[in-house]
């Protein structure tokens, strides 16, 4: 087994979960990770010498996702109407609450979604996110603020309380 293969096999589950959170769609996540891994192979001699090659690859996946702004993934964020304001009765279960949030996440602009995923799924600090995205921490905070404002829109206090209790 080559170094490349060992590296990729170890990192792949995390990459695929991360790409799924970014794209919200299994096939696109697979495409995104495949594209990145082919590039990693081509540049392996250089990447393998990096101090943190895994971060390098996560950055490649992130950049791949962000560069889709003109293409495939762009279709998904552009689509769909925002949900109507929902009453507490509309949420029959935790599942419905999370599915509603999943749909809200799908409508976020890509950079905002990336920040949300890196913050709340990858658990990175704003400084780490800024480094990964190549922007200022203030920009990260601005994206996060806007994203949270959008995600909260239409969610009632009861829903949030429900989320807190669960």
């Amino acid at each position, binding site marked *: 087994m080559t170094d490349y293969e060992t590296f990729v096999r170890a990192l792949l589950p995390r990459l*695929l979960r991360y790409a799924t959170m970014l794209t919200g769609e299994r096939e696109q996540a697979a495409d995104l990770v*495949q594209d990145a891994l082919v590039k990693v192979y081509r540049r392996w001699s250089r990447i393998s010498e990096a101090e943190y090659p895994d971060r390098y690859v996560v950055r490649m996946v992130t950049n791949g996702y962000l560069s889709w702004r*003109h293409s495939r993934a762009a279709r998904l964020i552009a689509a769909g*109407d925002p949900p109507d304001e929902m009453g507490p009765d509309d949420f029959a279960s935790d*599942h419905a*609450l999370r599915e509603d949030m999943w749909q809200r996440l799908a409508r976020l602009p890509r950079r905002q979604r990336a920040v*949300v995923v890196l913050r709340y799924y990858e658990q990175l600090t704003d400084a780490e996110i800024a480094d990964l995205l190549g922007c200022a921490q203030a920009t990260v905070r601005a994206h996060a603020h806007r994203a949270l404002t959008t995600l909260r829109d239409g969610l009632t206090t009861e829903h949030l309380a429900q*989320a807190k209790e*669960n």
Partner: protein
Amino acid sequence: MEIEKLIKDTFSAHEHDAPDGDVVFAATQQRIHRRRVVSSRPLAIAAGVVALTLAAVAVVALNRSGSTPGDDAQVAVGSTIKAPAGPAIPELSMPFALDWLPDGSAKYVVRRINIGGTAENPDKPVYGGEYTLSVTADGQVLDIDVAELRMMSVDEAAFKSGPGSPVTVDGKRGVESSKSDGPDGYELYVEHPEEGSMYVKVGSGIGSTVPTQQLVEAGRKIAEHITFPGKATVAPLFGLRDLPSGMRICAFEVDEGSAALDAKGGREPNTSYELGSCSTAPPVVVGTNNTNPPKGKPGRPVQGHKTRYVDERGYRTLWVLDAVGSAPVVLAGRVPPSELYDVADHLVLPD
């Protein structure tokens, strides 16, 4: 703080949606190691000659600005890039044409996406057409991206390559930026004749180092020679006809593949469509698939082709085997299986 918990819970709940690692790894290995045996359909391009007009003089493409890809897909007629397809496969219209490209041979991906709009203006298409090309000449590769951004004005331009500076291109207001190293190269946003902007990016391909000035000159010249609506059409690997009621083509993508660029990597030719009402996220994706092996149980034959069918927690996939040469056409979405079969029955496959 509560919403943050809800977000985390939502992500955790969707971890099981992640693709299978072994399948993705196998597909990646295939792309890396398998030397492509595909019919290369290079697009010869000469200086000063209509480059990716894609269409010859005989094209009679209906190219209404603002219409949906589905409308055009049903009626466009033309003679363009040769694909291994019979005449029954309807060609697809692009909303604009590129009348100039740098010297060299081009490999392309073209897309047309007209889904929905913003919450404020749901009828206004957010994305239009896009060409992604690699032009190779004298061992150097130029990566070119030209896209309609109808939702973004020049004033809202955002660059990956650095701060922008004002420029006038063919009498139209624009903003440009360039970076001599890295893949972002030269970027330009210039006013769209109707609304929003056109985005042009020219960068050095992998392993190539093209001088910045050359990138800038190429980018500006490409922008000067964009024509609307143009008569560019492309020939997909397969088509669709008489779709079930309420279903239209919301987006399409035609990829010529890039086998000749790099024997170790590259892409197979590919055609895909997204189908639905086009007012919400298209529920059905249809496309050729050269990378992932078919999975699932045998299903009902479609147009004389064997099929495989799999249901993964409500996400259903139908594989129509050997539909385009040896490649399958895959239909997938969170829809009833009958809907997938209904669409499959309306595929227009090559002879």
